[in-house]
């Protein structure tokens, strides 16, 4: 079965979405990621969606949900690499993803996670 790989990177988890996101895949990712966060005691999650060029309201809500779940499990989520077209679509859909942290690329996302965790500690 198709799965989105979740990589461990210190206390962070790195998720790179490189295939077309369909609803089932998104649900699997939600399951896998929450399991991994609690198993690895991860403090931060970085979701790279730079390869994603089509979103719908379901996927948009999914991203918001994952971030919310991670927060409950005491991990910060940063979404990085969103394409302009995706950003415009989400805004037009009325899903500005309040409460989800964003960064331009993985590098900046990593820095942001580090900074937020330091601020919390």
């Amino acid at each position, binding site marked *: 079965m198709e799965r989105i790989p979740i990589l461990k990177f210190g206390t962070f988890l790195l998720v790179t979405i490189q295939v077309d996101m369909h609803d089932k895949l998104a649900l699997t990712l939600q399951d896998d990621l929450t399991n991994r966060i609690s198993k690895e005691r991860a403090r931060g999650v970085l979701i790279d969606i730079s390869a994603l060029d089509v979103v719908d309201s379901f996927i948009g809500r999914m991203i918001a949900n994952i971030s919310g779940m991670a927060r409950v499990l005491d991990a910060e989520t940063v*979404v*990085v*690499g*969103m*394409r*302009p077209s*995706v*950003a*415009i679509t*989400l*805004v*037009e859909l009325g899903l*500005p*993803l309040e409460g989800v942290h*964003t*960064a*331009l*690329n993985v590098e*900046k*996302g990593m820095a942001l996670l580090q900074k937020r965790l330091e601020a919390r500690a």
Partner: protein
Amino acid sequence: MKQGAPGSRIPALLKSLEKDLLADWVKEQLAATSQRPDLLKESELRDQSRAFLAALQAAAQRGALDDVSGADWSAVRELLNDVSRQRARAGFSPGETAMFVLSLKQPFFARLRSELKSDPDALADETWRATVLLDKLGLYTMEAFQQSREEVIGRQQKELLELSTPVVELWEDILALPLVGTLDSERTQVVMESLLQKIVESSASIAIIDITGVPTVDTLVAQHLLKTVAATRLMGADCIISGIRPQIAQTIVHLGVNLGEVTTKASLADAFKVALQRTGASVVRNSAAPARAD
């Protein structure tokens, strides 16, 4: 020879009279006031007239005289398209362009009259048919002329849109988008796209939208601005809105627009200062610098 429109002698007449008609017509056009020797050379006019008459003659042999939208008339239509487009570009007025076809009437009617002298009924019928045909072709010329003008207008509109939304890099990591003029949905779309694209290209972390040049802010414009800010945030960059004039600040509050957590500054300079602070840079006045003369 009774092809084309049944009973009409126009196709046959056009064929036998083509040469004489061309000579009359060109003479007519050259004498007319609607002819512009400054915009179109005589040889070109002669070529166009010859090509049009040949196409008209060929189409009249095959197609119906009362329907110029059929496949038989495609060559004629194409020719008229070219002629009117060329004239629209050269600066002819619509009337002068239409006269190209309409000026054929007089020489054509004169020929008809001399050919059908013995049969007044036929003359009246054929004149009517010829009028209808040439009017239709004249109208077609007008439409083509109008269309090419509209293409020009559309292109200029697009250029204006692109011209009016420059995204400038103020500092490393800091972009500025000075907006001038009224914001409507279409323009906001272009603004949003060019800003987001520039953010990707330069990986800037702060964008300053300066609305000093926006004359009025209503709820729609405010909504457009908020959308742009939200999209920028989703990309992972911060947005500051600057250049809010006192009057606009009043309007925003009176309208009940909630700018939420968007950072707003009165001037671009203030916004730039905040942006520098956030990116960890600072501008320091060098005390050793010589005092300015003023």
